């Protein structure tokens, strides 16, 4: 095997044949490897990778639905939508968010605009997940960002609809507000699955009727390029606007009530006794729900959450107060119905009621002398009711109180309605592991003690008396309408029960309630007016057991937090009632002096409005009302 390499020997063609054969095998193996890999990727994994290529380029863009409007009973718009311009950063073209933010700040600074602090956003930046830098920016800022778009890669101004609460704080707790869905809320089961970033109702009607108001988000399949920029639309499911909600609330009355409360802590609830429609429901102090539109700032939230006056609490349904003397009609009805007294039965009031070694005082130190039921209610004689309470016992009173709708939520169209409290012997045993004392029944009979009612329960109770004994579910929603105004659903009156009290006895009590306002010596006499026959009852709820002597009871001396709550509940016009009102003012003192004037302002406003809306009131109604008057 002699190889010839020498140049002198000359080159033999085919000298490299063996090596080339080897090389041929090598090349074949290499190319076979490539073809095998192609087979693996394109044939075996082809479907999977094709799917990935489609996911790569197809994005599902959510089209946020427009929430339905909220209207008052006269179709005045309470909540509308308005566009919000949000500054959004899409970390795709550049993921350097801090540099982008720096640029925006520099651009803002030139025009003395400020970018609110963002916290530690940099850690949260994930590719393709938009980060909202600032919500609801001014047009000036929009102009700045748009004109410098080229220097701000990945920064876009997105337009989203946000809520506009036209009546601001006066109905804030009833209407509520919306917000971005939280992680916990995402976990809850719903008819329609929600996704992060969805806007849902968080509070009030916005929350209670969220399913109707929210509508349905649409989606758009868009093909994007590697820069995340939309190239074309592949298909679109349009979003569906939510239903409009018409409330039973009358915005004008709501405003009157809000003004009458004048930002003092308390609540006013007004209802149509004929059907349970809530006409006004105000809790004071309040907050501006527009702060929540497009996301509340941390500072604003802190301020609201830490406010000692609890502006976010809906006192009208969540506030629980001792009913005090406003409770007396229940005790009276129970005693009449049980046959323990007749309207003529009298008790002697010398200013106190002796029970064992304890004296229960009447608010009137001098005493009322001999009083019958009518006078006892008109002048709010405590001793009279101490006697009734002793005769009835706690469980009888509780049975009647429950029939009036106390002690359980009435089922208004809002969340967080409290049940109040109707104490019984069993309740005390279960709850406090103590037997009932007779003395507690005595306190209870004038609405003190363990008794608690919400303003809504109070107005419902007076509405029930006024309409002759039918307990209606308090309603806030009148009807649902499609976005183009077609009525989808109408909510009618719903009877919850009937009082186990005869018409005659109800009439006797209503007559006495009329006397409270219209007879000399009545505790609500300041409400007497020509325009409307008001029947009502004052109440002064002790917050703590103050020593019952003159000096200490002087409200001025007592620190504000321990002052009595002032209550007033009424209906009008007497005999043919169209409206029932309950007012509670926290720590405001005497019901007749503090709460009754608020109710008076509201009732005046109500009748002024009714008159304005109906220039010629129907004859028949006026005459009917005349007949019933004594």
């Amino acid at each position, binding site marked *: 095997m002699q190889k010839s390499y020498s140049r002198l020997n000359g080159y033999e063609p085919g000298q490299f044949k063996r090596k080339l054969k080897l090389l*041929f095998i090598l090349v074949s193996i290499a190319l076979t490897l490539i073809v095998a890999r192609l087979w693996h990727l394109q044939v075996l994994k082809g479907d999977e990778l094709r799917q990935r290529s489609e996911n*790569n380029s197809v994005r599902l863009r959510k089209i946020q639905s427009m929430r339905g409007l909220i209207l008052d009973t006269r179709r005045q718009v309470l909540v509308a939508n308005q566009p919000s311009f949000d500054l959004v950063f899409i970390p795709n073209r550049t993921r350097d968010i801090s540099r982008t933010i720096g640029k925006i700040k520099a651009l803002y600074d030139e025009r003395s605009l400020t970018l609110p602090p963002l916290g530690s956003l940099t850690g949260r930046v994930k590719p393709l997940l938009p980060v909202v830098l600032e919500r609801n920016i001014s047009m000036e800022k929009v102009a700045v960002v748009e004109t410098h778009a080229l220097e701000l890669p990945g920064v876009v101004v997105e337009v989203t609809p946000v809520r506009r609460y036209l009546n601001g704080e006066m109905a804030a707790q009833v209407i509520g507000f919306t917000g971005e869905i939280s992680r916990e809320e995402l976990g809850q089961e719903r008819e329609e699955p929600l996704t992060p970033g969805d806007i849902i109702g968080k509070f009030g009607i916005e929350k209670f009727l969220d399913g109707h108001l929210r509508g349905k988000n649409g989606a758009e399949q868009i093909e994007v390029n590697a820069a995340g920029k939309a190239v074309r639309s592949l298909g679109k499911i349009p979003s569906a606007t939510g239903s409009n909600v018409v409330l039973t609330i009358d915005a004008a009355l709501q405003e009157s009530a809000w003004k009458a409360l004048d930002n003092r802590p308390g609540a006013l609830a007004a209802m149509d006794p004929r059907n349970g429609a809530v006409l006004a429901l105000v809790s004071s102090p309040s907050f501006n729900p527009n702060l929540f539109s497009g996301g509340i700032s941390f500072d604003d939230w802190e301020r609201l959450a830490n406010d000692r006056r609890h502006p976010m609490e809906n006192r009208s349904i969540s506030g629980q107060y001792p009913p005090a003397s406003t409770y007396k009609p229940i005790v009276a009805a129970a005693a009449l119905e049980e046959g323990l007294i007749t309207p003529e039965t009298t008790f002697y009031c010398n200013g106190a009621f002796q029970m064992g070694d304890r004296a229960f005082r009447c608010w009137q130190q001098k005493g009322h002398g001999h009083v019958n039921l009518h006078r006892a209610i008109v002048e709010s004689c405590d001793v009279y009711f101490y006697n009734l309470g002793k005769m009835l016992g706690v469980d009888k009173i509780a049975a009647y109180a429950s029939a009036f709708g106390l002690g359980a939520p009435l089922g208004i169209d809002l969340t967080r309605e409290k049940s109040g409290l109707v104490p019984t012997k069993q309740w005390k045993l279960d709850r406090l592991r103590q037997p009932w004392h007779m003395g507690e029944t005595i306190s209870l009979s004038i609405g003190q003690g363990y008794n608690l009612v919400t303003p809504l329960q109070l107005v419902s109770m007076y509405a029930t008396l006024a309409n002759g004994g039918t307990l209606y579910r308090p309603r806030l929603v009148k009807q649902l309408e499609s976005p183009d105004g077609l009525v989808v659903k109408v909510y009618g009156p719903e009877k919850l029960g009937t009082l186990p009290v005869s018409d005659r006895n109800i009439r006797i009590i209503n007559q006495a309630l009329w006397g409270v306002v219209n007879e000399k010596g009545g505790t609500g006499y300041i409400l007497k007016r020509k325009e409307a026959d008001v029947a009502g009852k004052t109440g002064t709820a002790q917050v703590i057991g103050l020593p019952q002597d003159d000096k200490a009871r002087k409200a001025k001396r007592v620190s504000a937090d321990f002052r009595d709550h002032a209550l007033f509940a009424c209906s009008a016009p007497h005999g043919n009632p169209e409206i029932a009102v309950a007012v509670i003012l926290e720590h405001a003192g005497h019901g007749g002096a503090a709460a009754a004037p608020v109710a008076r302002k509201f009732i005046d406003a109500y009748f002024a409005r009714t008159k304005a809306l109906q220039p010629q009131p129907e004859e028949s109604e006026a005459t009917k009302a005349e007949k019933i008057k004594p």
Partner: protein
Amino acid sequence: MIKPDRRLITNFDWTLLTLVLLLSGIGLLNIYSAGFSLADFHRAPPYVKQIQWILIGVVGMAVAFFIDYRFLFRHAYFFYGISVILLLVVFTAGYATRGSQRWIAIGGFTFQPSELVKLTVILALTKYFDRRQLGRDYRLRNLFIPFMIVMIPVFFILKQPDLGTGLILVILFVSMVLFVGLDWRSLLVAAAGSLIMSPLFWHFLKPYQKERILTFFSPDRDPLGSGYHIIQSMIAVGSGGIFGKGFLKGSQTQLKFLPEQQTDFVFSVFAEEWGFLGGMILMGMFLSLILWGLKITTHAKDYLGALVAFGITILIFWELFINIGMVLGILPVVGIPLPFLSYGGSSMVVLMTAVGLLMNISVRRFILQS
């Protein structure tokens, strides 16, 4: 110098010309598709430029064809020297794109001397081995000069930095040495030596180069960073399936998910749009080209011709294999163009000229008398 010879026409290597023009034509269609939705109106679309390059390449091919290659080799070291000087010019007058300085501008064109070096190194090595035939296998000590011939340009190229071209030159050198014959003991020593040196080599790599190699072993460690190229490339290739998505219909390509889709990753565009069948056909054409090159090597009338034909063929083979291996995720990402298909003038012109040389050798086997 140029002797018009009728035999140059009668024995013309039509097969080689057809294969190369077909491949370039496919490359052109592919670049047309890759640059199809490019919304850059200020510059000529890439495929128009590629046509210009192919035409210039054909001129280079003709020149290389008509000049007797033996004349060419008289000046092989001169060409080599020029190309190394051009590499140096890159550092002073060249301009950089994407972080590395590889180009120099000549007139309106930009030129990449490192591509030219591939051919001049083949010429220089061939000339050296032709002159210094030992009559036996080479030992390591005989290989110092050819080693330096390769390592001088490799040094400058790695400085640019351009790992891919440097690597190709080293592989080319090793291939040619093995081809001319290396003593098996020397082979063992060299293999052991490079194994020991490899950690040192790793140390000299740039961070992004290390990243690429790590990414090769697990592309998912940073899918939007260094792994992005290879993942997108594999998605593109795989989504082509058996028949492909069709010309201009590759969504990965058209939506610009593929980086470097006209240059180093051009095969993924092709595979996405033409599928497994298209890939088979393309591989078949490349296999034919390489086999044809090896055939020319076998039938070359002299050592010089055989060696240069081998060098050119093996260059095409390695570039093909490394490039497609990279696109298919079986080799790490290094910047090596796909012969005749990648967009880029330097590679195209140099390869066309090299093919002209192959034809030259192919034809002259009938002309030269031994």
